[in-house]
């Protein structure tokens, strides 16, 4: 055993020495190079903006409790849904799932001391608050009004606010591209020795697939918003049809990014679910390779389906066909994932902890969102339902029921690793049920309202309410349920703070999980791994000993949680072997 260790130390000599610890508040917590601290920075910034963008959503819901519009003018309402969508997509979801969770978890899971380019990582983060300030400052100039898609020519009416919107999206695009590049290099070059691609945790596969899209799709968005900025500020007629521009061109470039963008936040959630399900089912994830490869397949197909957002918007009819068929094709790898996750549950020994509840809830809500996606991919159906609340319902089932559920599940799952303490389970479970019920109550009836003929982005719906009187009741129903989600997020924030002091001490590995981050102390030291571990098998087989050697802690403990919540002793994670 000791000889083995020396041997491995020699192998890992090329991984370099451990850098000296950062000194002083600024270096440690502000301009930190540590991927974990940067992850926290993304987390808190993203969560803060989520509160703002979420309160915009609630203003939208309150407005719709009355067919004439309860509280705002049409112009104010248009500003609210524009800011809600823009902030949620670019300033909340993408930073949270890639920046926060990806940054904190991925290097730990591959056994690295940091990402490949820590300086670049720090710069990526600090670009983000600048972009957020630029976006929100647009509200001082009247705010953008044309929806999160900001289609010209109508968005050209936004003036300075529209220019600031373009600038904010352009800036955050730089951050996304750099993070994507950083993660791609990190995953390719910095995996612990022995961690082959097929021994890599599924969250890292998901992060890799996401990084690919972040890197190659964001360029199109930067060009689209860059040109729109030039049109706003210097009157260059890229998109104004009266002067030879093409508004459809903007749609193409916008969606060439923004369709992959949806997968940029859903695929990390796939990764989170793939981590949570085996741990709390106490069995290997079913069809590891199929899940990993389908993540890659989805991210490649994501580049080929953008125009399904534009079926009625000036696409030649024959061009609709390939986009319809390719979009259908995405259903296959997505289905494989769903079925594999369900098979992971089969024959398990299932603990319904808070993260597990979110993962299981995700399976149901995401499947629903995926199925309505097949409807919308169908050109004839889309010609009927494009631009209605059916689309809003579908989108929110995928985003809130998919990406956000995955994100909310990842918080209690990795919180003990980040802080050394567990989050309160009772509060967590109440929070889950509030969110799950609130989500279905808010976004479920939207499909029906859309089918009945309610268009999206309507500040008032008096004509529709005349044709379909039940619309008033169902809009109020949705608004009421949306507050359950608010309560859930409030509970989450309380739990985050409360558990810092009062949570059960977690130890190294409270869940008896088998990926590398659980072999080091909680919270991890700034260098993560004193000894870079050697990997000789995949991470998910609970019938085997831990597939690592040269660990920092010879006896990874599972103590406190084992006694308090989930009686799993040491041996089941196989750690006793060393």
């Amino acid at each position, binding site marked *: 055993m000791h000889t083995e260790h020396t041997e491995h130390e020699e192998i890992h000599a090329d991984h370099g020495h451990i850098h000296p610890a950062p000194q002083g508040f600024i270096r440690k917590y502000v301009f930190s190079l540590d991927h974990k601290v940067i992850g926290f920075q993304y987390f808190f910034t993203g969560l803060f903006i989520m509160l703002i963008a979420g309160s915009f959503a609630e203003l939208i819901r309150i407005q719709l409790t009355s067919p004439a519009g309860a509280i705002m003018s*049409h112009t104010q309402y248009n500003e609210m849904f524009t800011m809600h969508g823009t902030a949620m997509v670019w300033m909340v979801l993408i930073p949270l799932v890639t920046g926060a969770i990806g940054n904190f978890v991925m290097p730990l899971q591959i056994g690295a001391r940091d990402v490949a380019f820590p300086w670049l990582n720090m710069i990526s983060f600090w670009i983000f608050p600048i972009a957020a300030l630029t976006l929100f400052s647009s509200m001082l100039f009247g705010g953008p009004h044309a929806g999160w898609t900001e289609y010209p020519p109508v968005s050209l009416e936004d003036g300075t606010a529209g220019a600031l919107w373009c600038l904010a999206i352009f800036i955050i695009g730089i951050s996304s591209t750099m993070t994507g590049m950083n993660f791609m290099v990190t995953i390719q070059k910095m995996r612990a020795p022995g961690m082959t691609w097929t021994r890599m945790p599924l969250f890292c596969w998901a992060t890799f697939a996401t990084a690919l899209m972040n890197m190659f799709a964001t360029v199109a968005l930067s060009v689209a918003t860059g040109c729109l900025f030039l049109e706003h500020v210097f009157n260059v007629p890229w998109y104004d*049809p009266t002067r030879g521009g093409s508004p459809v061109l903007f749609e193409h470039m916008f969606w060439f990014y923004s369709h992959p963008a949806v997968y940029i936040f859903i695929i990390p959630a796939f990764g989170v679910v793939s981590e949570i399900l085996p741990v709390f089912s106490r069995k290997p994830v079913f069809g590891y390779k199929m899940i990993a490869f389908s993540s890659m397949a989805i991210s490649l197909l994501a580049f080929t389906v953008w125009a399904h957002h534009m079926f009625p*918007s000036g696409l030649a009819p024959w061009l609709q066909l390939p986009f319809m068929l390719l979009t259908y094709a995405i259903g296959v790898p997505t*289905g494989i994932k769903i079925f594999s996750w369900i098979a992971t549950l089969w024959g398990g020994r299932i603990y319904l902890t808070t993260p597990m509840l979110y993962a299981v809830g995700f399976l149901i809500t995401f499947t629903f969102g995926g199925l309505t996606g097949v409807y919308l991919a169908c050109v*004839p159906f889309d010609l009927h339902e494009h631009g209605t609340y059916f689309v809003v319902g579908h989108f929110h089932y995928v985003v809130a029921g998919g990406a956000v559920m995955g994100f909310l599940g990842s918080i209690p799952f990795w919180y003990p690793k980040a802080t050394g303490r567990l989050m309160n389970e009772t509060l967590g479970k109440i929070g889950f049920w509030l969110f799950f019920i609130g989500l279905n109550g808010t976004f479920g009836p939207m499909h*029906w309202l859309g089918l009945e003929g309610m268009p999206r982005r*309507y500040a008032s719906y008096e004509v529709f309410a005349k044709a379909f009187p039940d619309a008033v009741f169902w809009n109020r129903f949705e608004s009421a349920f949306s507050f359950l989600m608010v309560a859930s997020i409030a509970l989450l924030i309380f739990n985050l703070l409360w558990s810092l002091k009062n949570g059960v001490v977690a130890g190294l590995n409270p869940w008896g999980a088998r990926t590398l981050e659980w072999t080091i102390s909680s919270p991890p030291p700034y260098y993560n791994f004193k000894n870079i571990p050697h990997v000789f098998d995949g991470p998910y087989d609970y019938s085997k000993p831990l597939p690592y050697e040269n660990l920092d802690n010879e006896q990874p403990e599972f103590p406190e949680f084992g006694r308090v919540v989930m009686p799993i002793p040491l041996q089941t994670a196989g750690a006793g*072997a060393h």
Partner: protein
Amino acid sequence: MAQERTPQPKIVQFEGLGPGFWPVTIFLFAVSVALALYWCFGNIDWLMPGWEHPLTDRTADIDDLVKFMSVFASAIMVFVTGYVVYFVIAFRARPGQSADTIGVPVHDSPKLEFWWTILPSALLAVLSAWSIVVWYKIYFGTSAPALTAEVVAHQFYFEVRYPGLKTGVATNSEPMHLPVGVPIRLLVTSADVIHQFWVPEIRLKTAGVPGLVQNLNFTADHTGTYDITCTEFCGAGHSVMQGKIVFDQVPAFNTWLNDKKKSEAAAAAPINLASGDKAAGQALFAQKCSACHNNPPTPFDQKLVGPGLLHITDDPAHPNLVTGKPPTPQNIAWILQNGFTGSIGTMPNRQANGLSDTDIANLVAYLTSLK
């Protein structure tokens, strides 16, 4: 060490595929079949408005596609939800199990994975074929149109232009009409930003994109009045951009169109301006025109909404009217009759302003007297 590395794991014990697996599966299958029967034979008018009496030949095509998708989507939803809930209950960790018990260490099952790749693929292949058939009908399946009308979307109304009619029908003030039983083609475009033209019961929509003309082809089946809605965000008035569409039998439609033509001809007919009364014209100007034109009249450049009309007949800077014609009484009357749209803005026509022949004569007398 070798023994240490291969501890005998305790694995959960259960019979077959799990307690109650087959009864649950049969139950889920029964629910799926019941839902499938509902989709095939039930009344889905509450989901697809106008399903019972399809308004156009496309309505039924699209609704059939919806039924087909719903049969399988609801089955997938039932099985996913059912199995997730059932597995979570059936395979829950139990207090009796020793603490180090693990789940069945199964990694994959090539046979199962083969089938759950092949079956959805086959299903999507059928759906693809069906979708293409309906898509073909939508774009290429209509015989030569008996009526082609043009829909021009504006912020925030649809203007519909009919053959033989010079002025369009603005759907914010009066409904558009279409005949039933004959193939119709609507050419849709926009005068300003991107809009969408949608009537839920027709099932089809298309965007009005400035600089681009797209078409909608269908044959309506029965008469009725429906709402037209804009479904692409188009600005501050998007939420009020609605109109009405009326489907008439062909004779009724022809009557309506001929009436429009007659009133248009009457509106454009020359008016005897000789009897105009200046004082009556001045009173009328204060009442009908002062919302947009300064009253008392100001020079051209002092605009309210429209230009000031003080020097309408003798302004050296603007020797011609906005129509580009010299300021003769007849040419001024023409604007009052027909309205005007140009870069300077839009003035409504005589119908919209409610002007009789006498009113126009009086206004012309007043305006030409201004110095």
